[in-house]
């Protein structure tokens, strides 16, 4: 087994400590490209029921028919030059001992075993296309909580999956949702029964490891009436020379009085297209919160959405994007008020550095009769140098008079006076700018579980190193 542990320097001269790769020994690897044969093969390999195979094939047609988005960032992907399915081991590891050593090595570098030790709860990790290791705390299972990969869920809970799969984000939603629907693999499936409140965050790590390996995970979370859950997803990807594509679909259903928080920290390599569709529906008095941190990637287009379907529903989206050289973060949020007395909030923070470009793209829509609804949007952009760029595209559609909608936006260059103040107290230029940036994203970081907050600060520090002076 050969493993390159040495931190290497990427093409932009910045040290990326996650730039190590473990040699992948795939048991099965589909050929490159996408067509009905590949889709059939994927479905067959997984031993899926016929309805899912048909679902995939239909989505494939939609994918071919849909045009590429004409907004957002520049997408230059050769869809025939990508591997769509790779199965790293022939069966899913159940205990840590059963997990192959090279995969363990990768997880160790990512700190998974530590998370496992710390939380002793549901750790799900996706290595390439399939979940290879997972454990679930016994008492969760005893409470009827289902936390598994989506492939397993189809086998073990077919009715539940079929009832909700694709209902929030249909294949017709957009080209990349259609692509995911055709070739999806892995992802998490969670069902929290009525009234069950999970007190600790459930976590999953995702990772792309084979060159030109698309990762198309599919996550479905159903939070039943009065239940609550905090799901945490972190991503790091190693560095490769040719383009990689990550295109996930995440669907969440928050039933009456339930609560769901979905936290994501993504740190992609600079050559990855990260095109993700995330959407939740919140019913009466339910609360859905997206906490979404985006670092790295060549282009990220991601706009977590909450549709507030019934009175009293709440949707909150906290988004942060960090764009450095060669990176375009087109991130934002969508809130749709479909019922009276619904409350929405978007807080977006973006940082552009070293020629990076970040855009906030957000939609607030208030449907007719969604009376007394309230929505507040705050988006702040911080630009670290004159080469970098920040744009704001706020879309607001209000079809009801009796509502309160607020929008505040600010763009600031890193303050000369702030820099001088910190430096006059002995901080170096680099320390001062890192401190200002960390302060800027503090409202998001303080919402993260402790070890993710530490990770986030470390990632920011890595991004900031060598940025000034």
């Amino acid at each position, binding site marked *: 087994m050969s493993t390159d542990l040495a931190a290497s320097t990427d093409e932009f001269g910045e040290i990326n400590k996650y730039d190590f790769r473990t040699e992948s020994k795939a048991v099965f690897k589909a050929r490159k490209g996408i067509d009905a044969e590949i889709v059939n093969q994927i479905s067959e390999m997984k031993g899926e029921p016929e309805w899912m195979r048909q679902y995939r094939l239909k989505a494939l047609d939609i994918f071919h028919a849909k045009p590429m988005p004409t907004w957002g960032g520049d997408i230059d992907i050769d869809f025939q030059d990508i591997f769509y399915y790779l199965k790293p081991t022939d069966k899913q590891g159940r205990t840590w001992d059963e997990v192959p050593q090279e995969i363990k090595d990768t997880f160790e570098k990512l700190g998974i075993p530590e998370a496992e030790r710390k939380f002793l709860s549901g750790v799900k990790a996706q290595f390439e296309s399939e979940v290879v290791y997972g454990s679930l705390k016994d008492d969760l299972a005893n409470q009827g909580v289902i936390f598994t990969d989506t492939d397993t869920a189809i086998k073990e809970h077919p009715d539940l999956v079929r009832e909700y799969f694709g209902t929030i984000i249909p294949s017709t939603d957009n080209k990349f949702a259609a692509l995911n629907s055709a070739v999806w693999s892995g992802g998490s499936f969670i069902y929290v029964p009525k009234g069950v409140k999970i007190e600790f965050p459930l976590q999953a790590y995702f990772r792309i490891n084979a060159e030109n390996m698309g990762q198309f995970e599919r996550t479905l979370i159903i939070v039943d009436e009065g239940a609550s859950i905090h799901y945490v997803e972190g991503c790091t990807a190693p560095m490769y020379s040719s383009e990689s594509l990550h295109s996930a679909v995440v669907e969440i259903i928050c039933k009456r009085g339930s609560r769901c928080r979905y936290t994501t920290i993504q740190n992609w390599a600079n050559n990855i297209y990260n095109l993700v569709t995330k959407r939740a529906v919140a019913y009466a008095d339910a609360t859905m919160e997206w906490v979404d941190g985006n670092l790295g990637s060549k282009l990220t287009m991601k706009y977590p959405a909450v549709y507030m379907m019934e009175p009293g529903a709440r949707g909150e989206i906290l988004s942060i994007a960090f764009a450095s050289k060669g990176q375009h973060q087109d991130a934002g949020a969508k809130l749709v008020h479909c019922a009276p007395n619904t409350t929405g909030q978007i807080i977006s923070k973006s940082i552009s550095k070293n020629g990076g470009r970040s855009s906030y793209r957000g939609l607030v829509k208030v449907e007719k009769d969604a009376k007394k609804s309230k929505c507040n949007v705050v988006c702040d952009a911080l630009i670290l140098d004159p080469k970098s760029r920040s744009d704001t595209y706020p879309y607001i559609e209000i079809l009801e008079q009796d509502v309160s909608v607020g929008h505040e936006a600010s763009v600031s260059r890193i303050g000369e006076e702030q820099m001088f103040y910190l430096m006059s*107290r002995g901080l170096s230029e680099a320390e001062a700018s890192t401190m200002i940036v960390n302060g800027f994203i503090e409202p998001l970081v303080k919402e993260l579980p402790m070890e993710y907050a530490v990770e986030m600060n470390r990632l920011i520090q890595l991004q900031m190193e060598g940025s000034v002076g």
Partner: protein
Amino acid sequence: MSHTLKIENLHVSVEGKAILRGVNLTLNYGETHALMGPNGSGKSTLGLAIAGHPNYEITEGSITLDGVDITEWEADQRARAGIFMAFQRPVAIPGVKTADFLRHAATNVRRPDRKEGEDLIPMREFRKELKSKMEQLKIDPEFARRYVNDGFSGGEMKRSEILTMAMLSPKFSILDETDSGLDADAVRLASASIAEIGKDKMGLLIITHHDKLLEHNPPQYTHVMLGGRIVETGGAELARELHDHGYERIRATYPDADAANQQMIAKEETIAV
């Protein structure tokens, strides 16, 4: 301990406009100097130039610390060498906790050779020290968790600056109108705090309009600035005179400097001096 901060023939411009026109001043460790003068005379500019503000361009003259020329040094190098300025209106750094900021600052100032990423003062040790300094200065412990100067009242800002000074124990401190915007009680507290932290333990340059701040810090020297120059130097009695009678006599005695001062005030709308 013996340290000397020496300002010689200092000329400073901001955005190409001359503000200081040949300032000479020598501060020794343990001394207290008062710097007074009407608005726009260049007092803050002198402080900011000594602290190393990048917008305050030194066009002529020099600043030396213990014989080392620091005229071209960056602000952080100066801070690590023992120069401190308490600002009149310190900027807010949202999201950065006062305690975290002070821990970084104190570590760097105490270990001037520290490289980025190297260890900070151990948390326990630092907390203990900060707590005792805050008690000494009668500052609410909650303060440490607030964001640096964010939403602070005028009084809180000034006390935060004095706390920072206490944590950094510089060789020389410039206090820029640490009394402005404070009520009489707050000024008295600030004056007592400065004396407790700074008197005989550093060289103090106290910029003020009034003698209240000097109550606990009687200056050995009082300098009067007008039109970008120090026009007169005296003892504590000069500070009292200026406080009681204003700058009429000074203006009359130095008409050229007064004319320069009037000109500078006219420009003040665009430049903070």
